[in-house]
């Protein structure tokens, strides 16, 4: 079996509304253990686990924790990034709706280890159910003394507040998210300083993805070194995969890193509907690369994904069968980013409009070789000259398709008569 249910072990087995059921199923046990450890020991376990951020970028979690821990400010914050807006991703929603306390437990342990005083969960506005569940769970945790003042009799105070997004994809970017919590339009800031130095309300802030935080209790339970034995050298542990598109069994699957994409699609996803052929697969979400069928033996691994120069690591796999046209898909992706660009950086604000115009030329078979060159150079300008992850990763689909689907481009240029 290629599935390995660790972070998702309680999915469907407990009532997410019941803190008692969570506690019965090993819940808050790891918090109790963590509170008896030295703070530095907890971070060391995360370091030994070599846990990398599950939101896409794959930044080592322990480095951020250490950075926050060494800050001496009186107020320090932890933000759980639940602004899961990347098309094709829904694993954080599964975590929030199936096992909300695991996320809270991970936040509380992280807060204890880093000396954070308050936590925020920033949930995208579309996820009303997740938000209600989290608010309910926070109240339950307070009643049991896992949140609030003197947690479990320790000199440790920590509270969590849920904040709602209002329909903005870019707010998943850490500084845009901070701006949004502060009540501003979600436009990013120039880094450095990084959030761990100067984040929310100007205070040191640790921002982690939902899945990253949900993995922390597991690391305490297993020990960092045991955790690191799962997966591959560059990518330890397990990953929640959001599988969607033209597969028979869509859904969220937890696998150890290192599983080939093909196995996820065929063994877990049950293959393609009506046994059609795969035309293309997009990895990570709208900001990820589009790869052809012959590349599906590549394994799911941060290092392997890095070659695409994109934040592919959130774990979405969107399968598209032979009925679909590359350029129709590209236009949808570009339009998405055109709408979601915050407008701060000119290459991103104006660039997506021009990318769309160029893609339309290919759809209408009116494109020339010059258009293909313009498309590539414009995509690279947006990638290089944008301040935040949105513009830096939005052209990935175009850039990867130019590499792997060159024949599709050339066909449009060479055969205008087919239109």
């Amino acid at each position: 079996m290629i599935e390995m249910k660790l972070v998702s072990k309680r999915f469907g087995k407990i009532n997410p509304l019941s803190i008692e059921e969570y506690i019965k199923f090993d819940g808050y046990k790891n918090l109790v253990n963590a509170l008896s450890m030295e703070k530095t020991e907890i971070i060391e376990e995360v370091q030994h686990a070599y846990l990398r951020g599950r939101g896409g970028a794959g930044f080592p979690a322990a480095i951020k924790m250490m950075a926050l821990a060494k800050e001496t400010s009186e107020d320090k914050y932890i933000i759980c990034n639940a602004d899961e807006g990347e098309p094709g991703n829904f694993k954080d929603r599964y975590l929030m709706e199936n096992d909300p306390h695991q996320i809270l437990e991970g936040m509380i342990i992280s807060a204890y280890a880093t000396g954070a005083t308050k936590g925020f969960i920033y949930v995208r506005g579309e996820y009303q159910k997740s938000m209600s569940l989290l608010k309910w769970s926070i109240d339950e945790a307070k009643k049991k003394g896992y949140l609030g003042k003197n947690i479990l009799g320790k000199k440790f105070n920590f509270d969590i507040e849920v904040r709602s997004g209002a329909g903005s994809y870019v707010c998943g970017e850490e500084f845009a998210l901070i701006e949004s919590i502060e009540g501003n339009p979600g436009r990013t800031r120039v880094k450095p300083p990084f959030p761990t130095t100067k984040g929310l309300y100007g205070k040191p802030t640790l921002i982690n993805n939902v899945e990253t935080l949900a993995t922390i209790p597991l690391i305490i339970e297993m020990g960092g070194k045991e955790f690191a034995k799962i997966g591959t050298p560059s990518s330890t542990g397990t990953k929640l995969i959001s599988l969607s598109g033209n597969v028979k069994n869509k859904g969220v699957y937890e696998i150890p890193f290192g599983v080939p994409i093909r196995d996820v699609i065929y063994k877990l996803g049950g293959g393609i509907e009506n046994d059609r052929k795969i035309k293309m697969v997009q990895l990570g979400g709208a900001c990820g690369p589009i790869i052809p069928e012959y590349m599906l033996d590549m394994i799911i691994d941060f290092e392997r994904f890095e070659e695409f120069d994109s934040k592919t690591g959130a774990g979405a796999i969107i399968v598209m069968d032979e009925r679909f046209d590359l350029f129709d898909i590209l236009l949808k992706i570009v339009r998405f980013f055109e709408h979601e660009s915050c407008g701060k950086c000119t290459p991103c604000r104006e660039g997506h409009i021009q990318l769309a115009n160029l893609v339309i030329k290919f759809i209408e078979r009116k494109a020339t070789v010059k258009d293909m060159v313009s498309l590539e150079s414009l995509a690279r300008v947006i990638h290089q000259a944008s301040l935040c992850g949105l513009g830096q990763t939005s052209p990935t689909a175009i850039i990867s398709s130019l590499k792997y689907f060159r024949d599709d481009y050339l066909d449009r240029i060479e055969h205008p008569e087919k239109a």
Partner: protein
Amino acid sequence: MLLKELLQKYPKKEDQLIEILLEYQNEKIDHYISKEEITEVSKYLDVPESKVCSVLSFYTFFSDKPRGKHIIQVCKDVPCYVSSNIDVLKIIEKELGIRINETTPNQQFTLEFTSCLGCCEAAPAMRINDKIYTHLTADKIKAILSEYKVYM
């Protein structure tokens, strides 16, 4: 609830702006924030009106124009697109007799696009007010809409 009453629930802090606007707009039958309300919120939080306006125009949830009682949002992203055998938008447009970004003459429905709703495993999907509907078929869409027309 009156805006004045709603504001009293919130601390006079700038970072409450989005939460206030979300809750208030949600409660209003026409789901928008008017010019007078912008002034009132800006006075309460002691922020310039321009700040309130910038937030309103930035986030897609907000509107400064009246909308229908029920806001229907159709996902337009790739996972829904490739998983659909039907054109959700066209079916709704035909059912309600309006186009995208329009409101029915009786002010009951406004039709909008939304970015991915995060339920791609159950595509195609749409959202009406706060509720997400998945696994849509032509018949299901018609049934949902009649329910809203008759009961809500």
